[in-house]
């Protein structure tokens, strides 16, 4: 069976991805840009589903849409006047930037689309390795399990490193984002008082 994603689903999701992404970079209200980002993330999760990477789709929703995007929305709420439209949202040279980006797009498309890829017509995401952990695993491994084993066998080190990465960014972010009780507050402080 050749893997053949449903074209209607693909084009719908692709339109949603592109449309929401455009809204992210052009929306006049920052909060709307944030919402559009969540839309993009969900659409990308849908594409993962279309690509049969279900676990990743769930992780995308859980971590990306659920944690990262929500955190960004919080940042918007904490720093931004609630309703002020972000009128001057663009730099002075949006057209130059647009031209640059179109050039980049041309290069990327030219580079990728003309290449030959090592793709196989096969459909299953079957791993080509044998687990060494002593677990009895059936021949057709569901992908979540295969993913877990893959994380255990060759990708142990990066897996551990990611936890260190998150730990250090957490420590540092706390320090930088927190107010320093030992020092006086920044000038021009407004009347607001955060808890």
């Amino acid at each position, binding site marked *: 069976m050749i893997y053949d994603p449903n074209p209607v689903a693909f084009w719908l999701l692709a339109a949603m991805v592109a449309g929401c992404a455009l809204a992210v970079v052009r929306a006049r209200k920052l909060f709307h840009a944030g919402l559009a980002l969540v839309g993009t993330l969900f659409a990308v999760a849908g594409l993962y589903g279309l690509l049969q990477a279900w676990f990743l789709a769930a992780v995308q929703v859980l971590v990306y849409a659920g944690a990262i995007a*929500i955190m960004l929305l919080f940042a918007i709420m904490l720093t931004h006047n609630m309703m002020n439209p972000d009128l001057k949202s663009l730099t002075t040279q949006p057209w130059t930037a647009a031209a640059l980006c179109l050039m980049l797009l041309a290069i990327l498309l030219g580079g990728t689309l003309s290449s030959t890829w090592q793709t196989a017509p096969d459909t299953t995401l079957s791993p080509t390795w044998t687990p060494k952990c002593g677990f009895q695993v059936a021949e057709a491994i569901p992908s979540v399990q295969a993913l877990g084993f893959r994380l255990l066998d060759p990708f142990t080190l990066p897996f551990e490193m990611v936890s260190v990465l998150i730990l250090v960014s957490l420590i540092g972010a706390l320090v930088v984002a927190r107010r320093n009780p030992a020092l006086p507050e920044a000038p021009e402080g407004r009347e607001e008082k955060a808890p």
Partner: protein
Amino acid sequence: MEPIFEQFVRDLTGGFQVPFWAPMLVSLGLVLAFIALNAMFMIWLERKICGRIQRRMGPMLTGPKAWARFSMWTGGWFQTPCDSVKLLLKEDIIPAQVDRFGFMLAPVLVFMAALAVYVPLPISSTSYAQSAPIVVAVADLDIGLLYVVAITTLTILAILTAGWASNNKYSLLGGMRAGVQILSYEIPMLFALMGPMVLAGSLSLGDLVLVQHAGLFGVPLLGWFLVPSFLGAVVYLICAVAETNRPPFDMPEAEQELVAGFSTEYTAMRFAMFYLAEFSNTFVVCMIFTAVFLGGWTLPGFIPPSSLNLGFFTLPYFDLLAGMAIFFAKAYAVVLLLMWIRWTFPRLRPDHLMTFGWKFLLPLSFVNLLVCIVLAAIQQIYFGGNPG
């Protein structure tokens, strides 16, 4: 859902092949109807219980006098239908200064989340005309448990949007509180669920139930994950209360401080959607608790026959019906527990809530995970393979 539905239609009509979209449509309809009716029933139940616990007269007495005179439980049932009619007929107000897009989007999102979360929930299984039992769910997803937790995200998003779009300080604060609360409690919740995941070696809710039925160390009742992952069950239940913003964790809508939190500006149908979603979510967490910790639709050592001969009539799908009965009985037991909690505990303070979640529940869920890993290893080594 799909295979059972097809089977059912074929049995009824004598070989009619259903189109591929029919099961989806039917399940959508069923879930919608279930949400609406179940919410009404739960509201009634909640009122009764609060009336009993806190001695409130309304819920015990409103409605035709005869009913109230007949018994304590029959009185007061009139309140819920009246409420529903009121909500449906009220004027739909969109305040002038709100962000219209966000304001209209939020209730839709929250309801979408409430709907979507039903997809992987297994309510029963049947082996009618099949060799192996089929799990009855809209779709028993491979990553069911993860999916359920992930969908909660949409609720946070909706609440934040509602809070922001209302352009109102109370709403904004309520929305942010709710967002932080749900986000924070999602983490211990996920870790609490990870214990059962490890024990079962699967993320599918159907698999989880079947594994529990098979038992741990060869002992059936031990298999209910309530036993090996008891801490996890407790943590999950607490987190579930927090996730659904129910008292004692109802900071987001604390009336004395925030009027009604993120839903302050909402009226009529839009408000009803938030309200409905809240009750639906409450029931969903109870269903998840049932499936993950209480053995779902199974009873230890009890395997219902696929059809029951009543002498004059053979009842088909008996195992399906029995499973559903067991499942809903368990789920409602959990609902009652939640309601008991709701009407007996006072509300927490937001910072206490955070401290409790991060400094107490999270480490507790880690401990639970460790215990589960050890148990799973013992099962693996001495009893061969995952229980399933």
